[in-house]
């Protein structure tokens, strides 16, 4: 067999490789250790875990993809879903970094996917992330992160961005909040109740600066709680613990600093009701015993 018929395809292949290599290098930077399709395949297990609400296992996969393919055009998948997972896992501070990167990458609400040739719309995912964060606003660090996310949005204006300002609007609404929930019944309680404080109550509340002695002592707070239990005619319960809790437990951003209150807990003495909802009495630092209000808490603006 003559080698000539093989020579022409070999030359064509060589020329193709020489001329196409710069274009390929432009689209796929050298930092990519795998082709684009491999990156998409690496994303799939994380996506399946997110569908199963296993955010703790999904997030490390997304983070590994970010490390492996930092320049990938479709890395917004990892950042946006990672942002969503962080909110679900209450890892608020890390959300700030992710959102800054998402907006720095020129996110406009829609991205054209070269692999699937479909439009990707991240606006709805970011709104879902905001909703997850809104549900956790009483957790430490959440309100500070909400404010930071609003600042990040303001620092990255994009006229074409869909749904501008999900966090700005949310932070704005939060600042107009007039009531805050400090305690509530269990989620499935047959008789739901909540204990809330208004901004005027918080402004007027007596403060405490630990380690100074509190203005009303633990013994007095506990005695007031015992009297309240008698007034409410709660039977078959015994004192189990007393807690001093800071109202605004966010160390980075406090709207009402140094406001503390007591929670005096009573547990059931009847073995059959050992796991029933405990009776909790809330006492402010001036001795005011807070009364529970019926129903689920609805913030007032």
């Amino acid at each position, binding site marked *: 067999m003559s080698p000539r018929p093989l020579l022409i395809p070999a030359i064509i292949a060589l020329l193709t490789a020489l001329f196409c290599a710069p274009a390929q290098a432009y689209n796929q930077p050298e930092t990519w250790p795998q082709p684009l399709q491999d990156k998409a395949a690496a994303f799939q297990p994380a996506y399946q875990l997110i569908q199963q609400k296993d955010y703790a296992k999904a997030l490390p996969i997304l983070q590994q993809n970010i490390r492996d393919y930092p320049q990938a055009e479709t890395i917004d998948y990892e950042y946006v879903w990672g942002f969503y997972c962080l909110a679900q896992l209450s890892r608020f501070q890390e959300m700030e970094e992710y959102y800054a990167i998402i907006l720095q990458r020129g996110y406009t609400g829609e991205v054209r996917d070269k692999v699937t040739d479909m439009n990707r719309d991240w606006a709805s995912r970011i709104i879902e992330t905001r909703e997850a964060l809104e549900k956790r606003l009483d957790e*430490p660090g959440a309100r500070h992160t909400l404010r930071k996310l609003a600042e990040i949005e303001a620092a990255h204006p994009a006229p074409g961005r869909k749904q501008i300002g999900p966090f700005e609007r949310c932070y704005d609404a939060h600042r107009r909040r007039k009531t805050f929930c400090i305690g509530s019944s269990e989620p499935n309680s047959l008789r739901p109740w909540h204990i809330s404080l208004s901004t005027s109550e918080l402004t007027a509340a007596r403060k405490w600066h*630990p380690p100074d002695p*509190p203005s009303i002592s*633990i013994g007095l707070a506990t005695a007031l709680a015992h009297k309240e239990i008698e007034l409410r005619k709660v039977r078959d319960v015994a004192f189990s*613990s*007393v807690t001093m809790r*800071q109202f605004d437990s966010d*160390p980075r951003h406090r709207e009402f600093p140094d406001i503390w209150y007591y929670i005096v807990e009573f547990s059931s003495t009847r073995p059959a009701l050992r796991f029933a909802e405990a009776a909790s009495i809330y006492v402010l630092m001036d001795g005011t015993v807070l009364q529970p209000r019926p129903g689920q808490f609805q913030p007032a603006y």
Partner: protein
Amino acid sequence: MNRLLPLLAIMVCLALATASARSRTIVSFPFQNTGTGADPWTVMLDRDVLLASPQWTDPAASEPPFPPDKAIQIALDVAHSLSATTGISLLSINKTTLYETSLWYYEITMEGDPAGILKRNGCDKIYILMDGTRLKPSPGRLDAVYEKQ
């Protein structure tokens, strides 16, 4: 008589096993776990310390035997000795029953700690008994310690 010998042997073995179990006196046992998953710590409680710990006999009419401001100061001293600039976010007095003995203790949760210094040292929560004894954490997940025979 020969038929009863195996039964007698079993009974003797059981009696010896029971006696051995009774003489296994506990010295120290895991009370709380602190730290992180990667750096676990165990707060151990000695049986002698448990038995000697003061009681808060009448919470409805008396103050706890150890005042909270002193407990907070102990917690802050621990944090500052580890170079952590932090305050407290939560203080609770809890009661638990261990080996038929009531134990009252402070559980103080530290706040902030962005560098994770306290968590790495098992001091993100600090446990103080009602005589001011601070229960110190030891590295790792530890098991109960029994008296040597």
